[in-house]
């Protein structure tokens, strides 16, 4: 297993400089940090998948003394590990940045507040949500190809937006006329609105984890028989 993780790590390491730039760029311009990390991750996954497929890397990697099961497990383990590391690193990074007055002025005080509030409550949901998408993406990429993974993410993106709009059905007008101002976010209308925010976050996070594990086992079934 150590060898398989090492193979995975060597690839990440070789892209390190590029990834660091992509990672730091949006953060420096004061976007909420879950956004850039998510974007950063998908760029990483796509660039790796694309380069690997172009160079037929699997032919080399699967010739190395590592079992297929370990190779795939390493691939699926690396993403949650990196999410945790980058998530923690981002929080620390943003925290440090908020200590600098120049940056506060550059970004604006509202943005600084939004960056530092509500982190624990949404972090788990974000982690699960990311795993859900990454898991499905890795499954499609492993079973089929990079081309299909691209189609999947494109179609998935538009479907997700559509479904979210449909499910949330936010009644902004109603909120405005009632003059509701409260500390908690309450979405009115639609089935999603019936759930307390904390429960919804926990649900999304847990669902993401479960889907990720299921994706791994499904991908493994295919990967064991994969022919190059």
């Amino acid at each position, binding site marked *: 297993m150590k060898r398989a993780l*090492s193979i995975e790590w*060597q690839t990440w390491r070789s892209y390190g400089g590029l990834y660091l730039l992509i990672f730091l760029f949006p953060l420096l311009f004061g976007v909420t940090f879950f956004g850039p990390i998510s974007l950063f991750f998908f760029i990483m996954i796509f660039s790796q998948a694309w380069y690997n497929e172009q160079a037929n890397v699997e032919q080399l990697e699967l010739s190395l003394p590592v079992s297929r099961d370990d190779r795939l497990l390493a691939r699926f383990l690396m993403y949650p590990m990196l999410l945790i590391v980058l998530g923690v690193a981002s929080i620390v990074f943003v925290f440090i940045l908020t200590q600098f007055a120049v940056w506060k002025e550059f970004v604006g005080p509202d943005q600084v507040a939004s960056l530092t509030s509500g982190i624990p409550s949404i972090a788990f949901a974000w982690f699960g949500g990311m795993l859900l998408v990454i898991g499905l993406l890795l499954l499609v990429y492993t079973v089929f190809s990079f081309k299909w993974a691209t189609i999947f993410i494109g179609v998935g993106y538009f479907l997700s937006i559509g479904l979210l709009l449909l499910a949330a059905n936010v009644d902004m007008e109603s909120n405005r006329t009632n003059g509701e101002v409260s500390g908690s976010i309450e979405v009115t209308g639609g089935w999603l609105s019936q759930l307390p925010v904390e429960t919804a976050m926990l649900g999304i996070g847990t669902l993401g984890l479960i889907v990720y594990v299921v994706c791994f086992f499904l991908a493994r079934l295919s990967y064991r028989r994969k022919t190059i």
Partner: protein
Amino acid sequence: MIQLDNVHVALKGFDLTIDELRIPKGFTVGCIGRNGAGKSTLIRTMMGLTVPARGDVLWDGAPLDVAMKERIGFVYDDLYYPKEFKVKALRRLFRSVYPTWNDSLYTELLESYGVSEKKKIKQLSKGMKMKTQIALALAHDPDVLIMDEPTAGLDPVVRRQFVAMLRDWMDAREDRTLFFSTHITSDLERFADYILLIDDGRVKFFLPIDEVEERFVLVRGTTNTLSERDQAMFEGVEWRGSQFTGLIDRSTHPIADDWIVERASLEDILYFLTEVTHDEARIID
């Protein structure tokens, strides 16, 4: 020993079928065949990259596992690693997975081949990529070297150096095995112990090279010296006006006195067995 029994690989538009093949330990085996004959598929099947629909591929009597893979060095027709990466990334990768990796030997080999680790893979020429792969394959001191078309695209000088280097590697230890696929047959005439001829996904023959040279000969003559019975005994025959050139397996057919007999090169054998008699698809025992 590498052993293939009742193996059938089904790919899109191509299939490879091998009833029985035993690649002995300690020898150089040259695998020849036309482009698309199934050489690479056979190698990928041996290496566990292509999963056969049925049949067994065994290395020293067991399916290929991680421990066995540690003892195999491989060289493919291209360096299958992201082209944007520097050569030094390969050292890190191989060092981390081979317990017997020898860093100083690798450095020595790269230096002797003139390969710079600072270069990106895309900056390497075909010959340099091949040399890098050879250095990677040799630096963990393998018992078996599997090579898929390693000389394709190399100029004659580099090819000769390459073959000389392989010969040295084989001579250094008796238990080493080299399996080497190519369609440049002259490479093998210099040092192969066995020849495996593959055509259209089937094994035509697998014989010691001495036997190949002994058995197959080219015969030339005029068509008026040929009876219909004579024509049937050719493995392949080519007609030029009133002249003919044919390949005969001497072990099964006698040669007429008025024919000119010449030594058949591996290229001749490959040509006559796979091109001229392609439709007949004869298998030689």
